[in-house]
């Protein structure tokens, strides 16, 4: 797993590299959310930077003077680090593209604007089955394209866009292949590492990343799993594991289980869906990003389709139990967790709901550990 460490090192030094690039005149575009296509940003000649941090309680708390405290700690974190003066990248961004698919993201965009950070909102209508909404998203992407062209002074040609779509498709393909290796028991790579790998993939130059992922895939095929054959195979579901929020996946795997697959809306690449490179590329981007992938929880209707997808993952990855990782005050995921819990009950699959406000003090982790360990123990008992 030296490659993971190499990637981690690249990510750690990313802010300095971005600064160097910016000094050479390259624009740095921050973005929030799965509906903002990196492909467009790369095609404009700018460098994308995903804002997706989480896992610490102080940044969301820093936002409370400006926002209701019963808001997502994840959304609040995206500006919280900046308000604390400890975000090395946000102050240097030439543009922040914020997807507005729910109230939490839209309020986050309000704060970016209030603090005079250069912001562009990408509206995502949750009623995704309507042609009205599909057109709305397409128009939003067109506006984003124009904005990027104006920002960088570069025309986004079809050729450039195709090149960048190809490049991101390659990354998705490789991640998908690595993910599929996890089907075999015991998984060759656990959830803690796979989530980190996904995170690293957002902060590396695509060409370098493709090389590293190719090497990693080859290496993994030859490696032996570090997990025991008896380790329960868990599915980790929820909204997002933010960059830096690794306590829960690590705890699960330190407690004798393995996260064999994830079902997360944000912070991972949805690598089962590639963007087509023939025909109208903007339409292809719009269709893949908005229509083809499993809908996020906020979409309506979504929950039946999502429950079916989880059921499929349970079958495909031979899952023994589901851990729902909820974030405090995320009202939509809270409702969905009740539905998934019911579906799991009907399937006789053990289900554990955890909730985090990113409070991982020693006092908070103690009870969390007990819950996770008890759950894993009960799943193990069922396997006997």
């Amino acid at each position, binding site marked *: 797993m030296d490659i993971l460490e190499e990637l981690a090192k690249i990510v750690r030094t990313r802010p300095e590299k971005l600064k160097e690039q910016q000094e050479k005149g390259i624009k740095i575009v921050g973005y929030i959310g799965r509906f903002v296509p990196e492909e467009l940003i790369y095609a404009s000649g700018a460098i994308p930077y995903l804002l997706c941090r989480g896992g610490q309680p102080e940044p969301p708390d820093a936002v409370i003077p400006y926002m209701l405290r019963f808001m997502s700690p994840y959304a609040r974190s995206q500006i919280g680090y900046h308000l604390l003066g400890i975000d090395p990248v946000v102050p240097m961004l030439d543009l922040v593209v914020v997807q507005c*698919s729910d*109230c939490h993201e839209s309020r986050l965009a309000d704060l970016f*604007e209030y603090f005079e950070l250069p912001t562009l909102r990408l*509206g*995502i*209508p949750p009623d995704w089955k309507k042609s009205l909404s599909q057109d709305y998203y397409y128009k939003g992407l067109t506006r984003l394209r124009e904005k990027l062209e104006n920002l960088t002074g570069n025309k986004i040609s079809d050729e450039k866009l195709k090149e960048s779509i190809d490049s991101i498709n390659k990354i998705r393909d490789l991640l998908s292949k690595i993910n599929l290796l996890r089907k075999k028991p015991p998984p060759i790579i656990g959830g803690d590492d796979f989530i980190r790998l996904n995170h690293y993939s957002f902060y590396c130059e695509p060409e370098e990343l493709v090389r590293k992922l190719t090497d990693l895939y080859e290496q993994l095929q030859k490696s032996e799993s570090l997990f025991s054959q008896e380790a329960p195979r868990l599915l980790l579901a929820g909204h997002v594991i933010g960059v830096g929020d690794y306590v829960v996946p690590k705890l699960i795997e330190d407690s004798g289980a393995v996260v064999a697959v994830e079902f997360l809306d944000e912070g991972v690449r949805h690598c089962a869906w590639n963007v087509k490179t023939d025909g109208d590329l903007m339409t292809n981007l719009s269709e893949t990003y908005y229509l083809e992938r499993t809908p996020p929880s*906020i979409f*309506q209707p979504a929950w*039946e389709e999502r429950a079916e997808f989880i059921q499929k993952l349970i079958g495909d990855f031979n899952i023994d139990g589901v851990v729902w990782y909820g974030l405090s005050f995320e009202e939509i995921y809270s409702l969905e967790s009740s*539905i998934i819990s019911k579906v799991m009950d009907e399937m006789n699959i053990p289900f554990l709901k955890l909730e985090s406000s990113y409070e991982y003090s020693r006092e908070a982790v103690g009870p969390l550990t007990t819950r996770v360990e008890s759950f894993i123990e009960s799943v193990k008992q069922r396997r006997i």
Partner: protein
Amino acid sequence: MAKDINEDFLRLTGFEEDEISQYLPEWRKACEKLGLTEEDIKFATKEQLPAHFAVELDGIRKLLGCFVKETIDLTKASEYKERGVKVVYGILPATLHFYYALKLTAPDKVFVSFPDIFLTMVMNGFFHKLAPYLEEAEKAGIPYGCRHCALNKTRYATHRLGIIPSPDISWIWGFVCDEGPKTDEFIRIYHDPEWKTYITRMPHDQPLGTVEDEVIDRVEYLANQMRDGFEAAQKEIGIKVAEEKIKEVIAIWQRYAAKLSELALLMTADPQPLGAVSGRLFWEGLFTPLNTGIEQMEKALDITIKEVKQRVANKEGILPEGAPKLLIYSIHPTVPWVAKIFEENGVGIPLSEFFILTKKQLKPSTFEDPYMAAAESWLRTSGMVNPGYQAEQICEKIETHKFDGMVFGLMDFDRWLGSSHRLLARIVEEKTKLPVFYIEGDNWDDRDYSPEALRTRIESICEIMKMRKA
């Protein structure tokens, strides 16, 4: 005189003697369905209503009576449905015209209601007995700890408890929060596959300060969403509404809104002639469709305006002359004690910002098309737009009505309307240089934020205001 507490209750709520005998059996039946006991009726009659509503005024008693009649009617919704009447629900906030146009088109074939807000208003405002509904929802999939909205819990719980039937169509607007429409999806999947929903939504993606009603693309998108939703609702229940009907409804509501504006002006007289909660209850007519119609509420409003005018002429007030007055974002009759604590401490909160209009809102629409007009009107409304534009409108209202400051908050349950208040408080304070306060609380559900919990905060605000005004 009868000793039956239910009769006393109906009398207190403005029922005429000949109406009482007609409505009493129905009211008793409604109480049984809602889970109201004689003790609850006694509490409302002897304590809650006299303490918080101006029941000495004939108009206010009649207004309370409108709520009672609508409550009775709402508890009969299942019977209506069994008889083939189409049940149409919606949630706050939405443009009422469409729901009323359905009702006007086919009065005997359609039942319209926003059942959650209505029942929340009556069950907590009159009887302080919403908690059993909330607890019902909390034990069946809508967890307590996440601060879910009490309205959504009430909609779900009252269906679970058999108080309201599943709708033929629940046309849900998600122009504000996400949880409202998603709760309908939740109800359908988790509890009742018969709960049919059509959603109408729009992203919050306008930059701070955008005058949204002047962005033609946005007005058009919203109008198209409204048209699409209304057509879907009509198709689902098999009733076709002519555009003329929508225009007819708009005319009725403009008339009602004009009267409300008159009441709003009277409410800001010095001394303040009427308690905030009593006046505020009339605004429900602008936001919640009544299956029993608006006519009775309009009559109650006419009487109240006359009575309040008399008070103004007599210089009669609920507060001393010159008392400080604050604009409050929204005061709800569901927690009437909030206004009472302000008023007991010598500070008026006569009007809710959410419900009063700017000069632009009073102007006729730019558009003939009823959908474009409704969309434009929506985007002229402060609570529906980005906080920059909203703050501009709030500042205008403060200036127009000469408020001494403003109170935000009490909207903790709402990830849209409530989530911007701290930011708005900063912007409005910067612009007006007036004191602006924020109260953490919940306008629907006072289990966590009780009078005891909020009294100190409100008293401190009142002390500051009185010192500034002295």
